[in-house]
């Protein structure tokens, strides 16, 4: 089985091992950690504003007495979910658009690639920044859709060019001569053959999406209160980071660790899935 070989190669890679263990620990912290902490993320401690980390509030408290341990973990959950969802949607979209454009060719190809060019030219930061805060009452899922909508274009071009060469393979031609509908050929024969590219892309997209979310939230254009994410926490913490470093250090550190571990896994996956590649 190929997947077994790939997994074995992945675990033999030292970088990837570090990445996987760090990511598992971080996810455990995000989802199990809140049950261990003494406070809920919505609790306010009116006796402790901006207090330093201690035995009661492990990571200190914020301006209105929130327990930073609970709030930060809650924010990390949101960041992880956003990262995963955006990566899934973006890579899926890239696979579909790229393979349809490459397989159908002609005007379908032209129209789709024109759309890709247009989205690449539009400054994504601007569009998301204008729309996202105005989705009043809309949930953060809209933000996920927006972020995903602007992060699939380059991969779709790669997928398209790979589809162009796959289109002429014997098994694809055979399927076409047997009269199988073209959309079925794409999903059964083309996309599975691009899986290594797509898996690597999806992994790296997770870390890109987490950074993107944090960057937009840093200016208040991303996740809107009362929701919290690592980005909103870093934005709040950085405002008075010199006086109250615990507000900044924990979310920022977790963000870096999260991105670093995902990047390590992505790099290891690339080596495992595509041993010949050198990039």
């Amino acid at each position, binding site marked *: 089985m190929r997947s077994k070989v790939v997994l074995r190669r992945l675990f033999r890679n030292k970088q990837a091992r570090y990445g996987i263990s760090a990511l598992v620990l971080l996810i455990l912290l995000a989802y199990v950690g809140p049950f261990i902490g003494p406070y809920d993320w919505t609790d306010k401690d009116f006796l402790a504003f901006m207090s330093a980390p201690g035995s009661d509030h492990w990571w200190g408290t914020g301006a209105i007495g929130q327990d930073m341990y609970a709030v930060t973990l809650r924010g990390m959950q949101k960041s992880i979910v956003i990262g995963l969802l955006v990566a899934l949607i973006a890579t899926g979209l890239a696979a579909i658009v790229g393979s349809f454009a490459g397989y159908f060719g002609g005007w379908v190809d032209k129209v789709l690639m024109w759309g890709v*060019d*247009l989205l*690449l*030219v*539009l*400054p994504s*930061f*601007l*569009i998301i*920044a*204008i*729309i996202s805060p*105005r989705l009043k009452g809309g949930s953060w899922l809209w933000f996920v859709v927006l972020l995903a909508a602007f992060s699939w274009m380059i991969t779709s071009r790669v997928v398209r060019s790979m589809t162009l060469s796959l289109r002429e393979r014997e098994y694809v031609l055979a399927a076409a001569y047997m009269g199988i509908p073209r959309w079925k050929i794409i999903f059964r024969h083309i996309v599975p053959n691009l899986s290594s590219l797509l898996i690597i892309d999806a992994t790296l997209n997770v*870390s890109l999406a987490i*950074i993107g979310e*944090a*960057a937009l939230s*840093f*200016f208040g*254009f991303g996740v809107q209160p009362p929701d919290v994410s690592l980005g909103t926490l*870093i934005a709040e913490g*950085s405002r008075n*980071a*010199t006086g109250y470093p615990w507000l*900044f250090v924990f979310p*920022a550190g977790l*963000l*870096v660790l999260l*991105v*670093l571990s995902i*990047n*390590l896994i992505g790099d290891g996956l690339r080596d495992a899935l595509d041993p010949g590649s*050198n*990039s």
Partner: protein
Amino acid sequence: MGKYLLRRLAINVILVAVAASLAYMLAATTMSPRAAYQGRQPPIAESVIDATLDAYNLNDKTPVLQRYGTWAKGVLTGDFGRTWNGGSVNQEMGRRIFVSLRLLLIGTILGFVVGVALGAVSAVKQYKLSDRLIGVSSFVIMALPVFLLATLLAMATYSLNDGLGFTLIEYTGEYNPKLSGFDQFLNRLNHLILPTISLSLGSIAFYSRIQRNMMLDVLGQDFVRTAMAKGLRRRTALTKHALRTALIPSATYFAFAFGTMFTGAIFTEKIFAWHGMGAWLVDSINANDVNSVAAVTLFTAICVLFAAFLSDLLVAALDPRVRVS
């Protein structure tokens, strides 16, 4: 070649026009510059607000298409309209482009040169201590988003200055307007230190990884061995033959970065309080400044397409295998 260029130019012009129009429509329908006038004390009469907004082509009571027509007509004659408080968008843009340029020029070049050098060294000394050190640090730096890095640098400098009791390194603004002559020049350089570090570190990490991979590819190839076999010193063979060929991918990225330099750096500019194009984007969104948003989009689209064109040209010039058909 000429036909190819013309076709490409035509497509790009259409792309820019569509992108800018979409941005204008989006901004004009969702943003309300009226809000900036309504909440004032003492209150301004409705008719006065209308008249002011009409004069700036920002009145939301005028149909969007009509406003778009006025705007588009202006843009075609090179007039980007008025900001929300009546300033000229053209003037603002002219000023800010050069602020961004002054900020990014050094950082972009420094990032490329240092990154390529580190990547090449890393490849030549593969698996040695220096290679591992460069590899690990570039990995860590790439996991550090630029807004985090910039904030950390600003914080560290603040504490350093605080500890020293005087301002050793400036961390906000572009220069001190009170100084003049050579002092002002030094002051400008001082203000450049932190933003340049925060801009170039990321690109150093990025270029060093690309350059290392490319260099490793090239090092194993025949022409490098031949160069050494014909009696060139190792150093000459590496720099003249290997590095030059391995430079192509980094150079194309550099061409792209160079072309998009005028569009500014959103995070670095905001955090270190430089009033360039990147900061303008954030400020104009916050100020509901429709015409500025559209102008920034138009300008960015032109820069991106020009930069892509520049990097394509460079590939064609450097790589004998690529020929434009």
